[in-house]
């Protein structure tokens, strides 16, 4: 068994490593399996992931059938939490808000990120400079972004307080109105995450062979037609990857909601993960919170599967077909 030492990596990937026929002390089986790693190579990663993600999933299911306040042992109460969940208007509202947030985030972020990414894929100098600026929000954590926007949108002091009177709305307070606060969450998360997806599209667009565009040009296709018939189909896989990341990510915009709106005004921005946090870590009803958490997993998995089905991610076709 070789010991892993990260410092011992080769200096240059040579095409064919030099022959060394000194036996390394282990009898080797001949045949096609020579030099192939055993499954145990993947075990550490799997065990580690299982300990903190898969085992907890099982525990969430178990806890959802118990009543537990954090002290002593969980008390088994059968399906009480689940009956409560099915009839809980707060939960219904949270699920609807979560889905609406996912869909609107996707609808806002995808077109902007795609257009910016394709634009940034051009090699002009000005595009490179602007892309470097566009990238900056990505360096800020969700917590930092939420804090910045909360300061910017303060109704009494700061930019919004300055701009408000100019547009005839002094004392404008976006975070005190439900629909506006929801819109702010969509906008702020888009502001934060569009750079990442823009990068994905930029990378995808750079991999489109130039010969396709040259062919289109010879055929007399204009910019729009080239975009529609070459760029978009060639970006199919990137769109899928970006969309799945985006939608699953939007189910968990927890940090932003906690810091920016605290789920309010009222419960107008209380999405499922935030509701779970309130029930679990503020009301100490870990059993009911686990039922809510499991619902979040079901929603996340369902959404991922639907996205994958819609986009054919499972059978990822090559964009190089017929070339």
């Amino acid at each position, binding site marked *: 068994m*070789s010991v*892993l030492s*990260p410092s011992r*990596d*080769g200096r240059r*990937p040579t095409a064919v*490593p*030099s022959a*060394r026929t000194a036996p390394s002390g*282990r009898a*080797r089986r001949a045949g*096609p399996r020579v030099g*192939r*790693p055993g*499954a145990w*190579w993947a075990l550490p990663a799997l065990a*580690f*992931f*299982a300990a*903190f993600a898969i*085992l*907890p*999933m099982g*525990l969430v299911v178990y806890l959802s059938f118990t009543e537990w306040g954090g002290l002593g042992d969980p008390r088994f109460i059968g399906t009480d939490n689940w009956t409560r969940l099915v009839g809980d208007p707060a939960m219904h509202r949270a699920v609807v808000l979560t889905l609406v947030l996912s869909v609107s985030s996707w609808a806002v972020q995808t077109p902007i990120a795609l*257009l*910016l990414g394709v*634009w940034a894929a*051009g090699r002009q100098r000005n595009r490179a*400079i*602007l892309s470097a*600026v*566009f*990238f900056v929000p*990505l*360096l*800020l*954590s969700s917590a930092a972004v939420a*804090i*910045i926007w909360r300061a910017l949108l*303060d109704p009494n*002091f*700061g930019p919004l307080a*300055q*701009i408000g009177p100019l547009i005839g709305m002094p004392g404008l307070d976006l975070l005190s109105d439900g629909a506006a606060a929801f819109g702010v969450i969509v906008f702020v998360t888009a502001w934060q995450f569009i750079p*990442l997806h823009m990068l994905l599209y930029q*990378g995808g667009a750079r991999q489109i062979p130039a010969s396709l*565009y040259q062919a289109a*040009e010879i055929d007399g296709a204009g910019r729009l037609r080239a975009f529609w018939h070459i760029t978009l189909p060639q970006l199919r*896989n*990137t769109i899928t*990857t*970006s969309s799945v*990341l985006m939608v699953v990510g939007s189910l968990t915009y927890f940090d932003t909601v906690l*810091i920016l709106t605290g789920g309010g005004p009222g419960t107008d921005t209380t999405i499922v993960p935030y509701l*779970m946090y309130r029930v679990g870590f503020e009301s100490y009803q870990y059993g009911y*919170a*686990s039922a809510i*958490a499991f619902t979040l997993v079901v929603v996340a*998995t369902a959404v*991922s599967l639907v996205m994958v089905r819609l986009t054919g991610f499972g059978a990822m076709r090559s964009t190089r077909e017929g070339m």
Partner: protein
Amino acid sequence: MTTTSAAPAAPARTAPRRRRSLRDRPNPLAGLGALAWLLVVGVPLYALLVATFQQTEEYRTAGPLTVPADPTLDNYVGAFGSGLITFVWNTMLVTAGVVAIVVVLSVMAGYAIVRSRTWLTNGFFRVFLLGLAIPSQAVIIPVYLIIVQLDFYDSLLAVVLPTAAFALPVCVLILTGSMRDISDELYEAMALDGAGAGRTFLRLVVPLSRSGISTIAVYAALQAWNGFLFPLILTQSAGTRVITLGLYEFQGQYRVDIPGLLTAVVLATVPLFLVYLVARRSLISGLMGVGGK
């Protein structure tokens, strides 16, 4: 803030010039769109920076959208007295731990998934695929329980372990993608030389998946640096506080001192910004790699 004009204002439908391909011709409409986005990104960032050089009083009266009349460094001097250094240091430790764990484990797992011929590894791969859909928020209650049982509560390790675990699925997927690109001939050459799995791994797989490895290192580092939920639930005292949590605490304390709060935000971003300035290319190509091929 200098902006280069996006393009000479020419109608888009001019006859195509010979030498420049369709992709590299200026596109005034797109340039305008990009400038609009520059405003959306730039104005808040400008306001953020200006606010950090303003006295609280000036911020309240003039606001951060102006040019500060009397720029001051008081906010920056004041920020260092608030434990910010400790928080940044804790975050660096957490980030280093997460990157180390994630890189070692996912490189090994990726290698096995791509090269092993046992049916087991296919199952492992599916587990990681499904794992993509498990949001960390959903398992935070049991993770909290497990961390308390392990007696790691309120330590940096409590943050490192789950953060690393939840970065694994994406990283394994990225790596299997980049390792599949290593051609079979190279593996055969290694096998003919009589190299075992270990030597093939060190001499061939690691050097040739370098771009994939830098991608996952960048991804894992960003996850760790920006993580909020795990530290929020799994740590408590100021000694183990990471920077995201520190900022959240500041927001509660600095109710009236917005410039002070925003200065802390700026200072919290400085380390990452320096990395960005120094290693912009690898950071960007690393993040592009998250999208796969």
